[in-house]
C-alpha cells in the first residue's frame, strides 16, 4: 500500500492498493453535537434546561441548568414571621401543598414544643395522604404522556379532580391551601367530610388498580421504561435520593416508618418495593411501580384515619396555636416524607424574634435531579425523556 498524498483536508487519505485500485478514504466528522433541551420543552415538566452533548442519538452527557423559577423562598422566609412562611411553602411543590405545609409545621413545632390535638393530627395525615395520591396521579399521568400514552393522563386528572374538590371543601383552595398551620389547622373539616372521604376511598380503590393495570401491563410502556436509567442502591444513597426514587432502587426506607412523625406509628401500611420480577430494580419502571402501589397504601392510611379520628362537638382546630409564635433559641432539622421524597427544613431561631434567622428548604426534587448527569450517560435521547419523567420533578421545588 502506498500513500499518494493528502487532499482537501487532513482527514482525507488517497492510497493505491494492488497496482491500480485507488482508494480514497475519508474520515467522517465525529464531532459531538450540542442539543439544548428546554427550558420550554414539554418533557422537562416546567422550566428546566438540559444541555445535552450528543453523539448521534446517544447522549454523552446532559448537564441540567436550573433557577428559572427561583423565587428566593429562603430570603423571604427571613423577612416574614413563622405563620407567614406557610403559604410560601405551598408554592414550592405546588402539586403537594399539604405535604409541604406539614413538613414545615412539624419542624417549627419541634422548636415550640407544643402538644397537637389528636383530631388535628389525624386530619393532617389524611389531607397529606390525599394530596400524595393527587400528586402521584399527576406524576403518573404526565409520565404516560411523555412516553406517548394519552389515555392514562385523562384517567388521572379525572380522579385528581375529586381530590382537589375535597381539599377545596376543607381548605377553600384547590392547590395552594394554607390549611395546616403551626400548632393546628386553619379550619376543622366540614360536617360531612368523613362520609364524603369514605365515598371517595370506595370510588378510588378500583380506579387505582385499573390505573396500575392500564400502564404496567402495557407492553409499549414496559418496553420504554424497563432497564432504562438504572440506579444502584448504594449510589442512590450517596446521591441523597429519597422517597419513591430511593425505594425504586430497592432501599427499604420511608420516613413515615423509619423516622416516624405525627400519628404514623399507629397506622399500618406497607412500603412498596420493586421485587425485581417485573422490572429491573432501580430502573424507570421500578420507580413508576413504587408510585402506583403507594397510592393504594395511602388509601389504606386514609381509611384507618377515618376510623380512628376522634369526633368532637364544637372542636376548635386553632385552640393549640400559640398567640405569638416565637420558638426558643435553637436549631432544628425537621423533615417529612413528601410524594417526591424527603422535604426537610433547617430552621434557626434566635429566641427573640418572630422571624427565623435562617430557613433552609431541603428540596427532594433538587437532590434527586442532581443525579441527572450520571443517569443520562450513554442513554438515547428518547430514553432521556423517560428518565426525567421518572424523576418526577416539580420545578417550583427544585428552584424554590
Amino acid at each position: 500500500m502506498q500513500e499518494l498524498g493528502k487532499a482537501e483536508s487532513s482527514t482525507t487519505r488517497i492510497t493505491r492498493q494492488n497496482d491500480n485500485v485507488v482508494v480514497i478514504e475519508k474520515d467522517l466528522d465525529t464531532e459531538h453535537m450540542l442539543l439544548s433541551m428546554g427550558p420550554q420543552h414539554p418533557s422537562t415538566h416546567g422550566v428546566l434546561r438540559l444541555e445535552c452533548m450528543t453523539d448521534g442519538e446517544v447522549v454523552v452527557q446532559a448537564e441540567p441548568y436550573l433557577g428559572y423559577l427561583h423565587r428566593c423562598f429562603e430570603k423571604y422566609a427571613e423577612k416574614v414571621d413563622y405563620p407567614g412562611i406557610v403559604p410560601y411553602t405551598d408554592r414550592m411543590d405546588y402539586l403537594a401543598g399539604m405535604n409541604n405545609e406539614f413538613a414545615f409545621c412539624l419542624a417549627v413545632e419541634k422548636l415550640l414544643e407544643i402538644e397537637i390535638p389528636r383530631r388535628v393530627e389525624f386530619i393532617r395525615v389524611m389531607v397529606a395522604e390525599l394530596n400524595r395520591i393527587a400528586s402521584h396521579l399527576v406524576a403518573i399521568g404526565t409520565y404516560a404522556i411523555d412516553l406517548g400514552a394519552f389515555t392514562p393522563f385523562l384517567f388521572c386528572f379525572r380522579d385528581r379532580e375529586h381530590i382537589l374538590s375535597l381539599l377545596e371543601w376543607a381548605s377553600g383552595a384547590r392547590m395552594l391551601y394554607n390549611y395546616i398551620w403551626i400548632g393546628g389547622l386553619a379550619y376543622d373539616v366540614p360536617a360531612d367530610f368523613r362520609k364524603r372521604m369514605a365515598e371517595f376511598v370506595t370510588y378510588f380503590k378500583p380506579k387505582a388498580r385499573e390505573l396500575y393495570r392500564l400502564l404496567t401491563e402495557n407492553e409499549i410502556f414496559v418496553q420504554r421504561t424497563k432497564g432504562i436509567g438504572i440506579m444502584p442502591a448504594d449510589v442512590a444513597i450517596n446521591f441523597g435520593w429519597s422517597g419513591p426514587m430511593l425505594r425504586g432502587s430497592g432501599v427499604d426506607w420511608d420516613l413515615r416508618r423509619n423516622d416516624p412523625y405525627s400519628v404514623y406509628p399507629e397506622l399500618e401500611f406497607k412500603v412498596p418495593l420493586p421485587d425485581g420480577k417485573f422490572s429491573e430494580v432501580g430502573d424507570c419502571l421500578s420507580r413508576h411501580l413504587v408510585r402506583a402501589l403507594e397510592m393504594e397504601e395511602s388509601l389504606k392510611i386514609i381509611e384507618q384515619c377515618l376510623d380512628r379520628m376522634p369526633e368532637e362537638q364544637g372542636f376548635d382546630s386553632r385552640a393549640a396555636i400559640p398567640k405569638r409564635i416565637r420558638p426558643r433559641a435553637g436549631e432544628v432539622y425537621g423533615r417529612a416524607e413528601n410524594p417526591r421524597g424527603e422535604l426537610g427544613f433547617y430552621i434557626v431561631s434566635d429566641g427573640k424574634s418572630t422571624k427565623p434567622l435562617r430557613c433552609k428548604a431541603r428540596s427532594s426534587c433538587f437532590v434527586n435531579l442532581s443525579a441527572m448527569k450520571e443517569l443520562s450517560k450513554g442513554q438515547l435521547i428518547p430514553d432521556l425523556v423517560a428518565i426525567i419523567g421518572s424523576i418526577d420533578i416539580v420545578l417550583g421545588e427544585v428552584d424554590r
Partner: protein
Amino acid sequence: MPAALQQSRAAYDVIKERFGDAVSAFDANETMPFFEVADAGKWVEIALFMRDDPRLKFNYMACLSGMDYPEQNMLGIVCNLESLGVLGHRVAVKVRCSRDGGSIPSVACVWHTANWHEREAYDMFGMVFTGHPDLRRILCPEDWTGFPLRKDYQVQETYHGIKVPY
C-alpha cells in the same frame, strides 16, 4: 437522654477519639445534636472517616445548608448526616470559614449529593469550596452580583438594563 441523642453521642465519641482537637465539643440538644469541625482543613478527612468507618457509616447526607454569622464575621455550612439503613444514627456537623475570601474543603468527592448543595451554598453565601469539581452558581444567573442570603446583601440596581428592586 433520649435514645436517638445517645446514639449521636456515641458516634461523636468515635470521631472525637480519632481526631481529638480538630473537632469541638458535642452540643447535645434534642432537636439537632451537632458538633463543629474546629480545623476546617481536616473536614474531608473527617467526612471520609465518618462515611467509611464501620462504627459510623454515615452514608447519607440529608442536607447541607449555608450559614452567615455576621457577628463573628464568619460563614459556614451545616451538614445533616445520617447512617441510612445501616446503623440509623444521625448527627449534624458544622464547618466555618472567614467571611471575606474564606474557603471550606469540598466533600463532593465523599457524598455526590454535596456537589449541588455546595454549589447552592456558594451561590447564596459566596464561600469557596476548594476541590469542588464544578463550582458555579446554580440558582442565580451566572453574571449575578452579590450573594443574596448574606445578611448585609444589597440587591443590584439593574441587571442587563432591567430594574431589579421593585
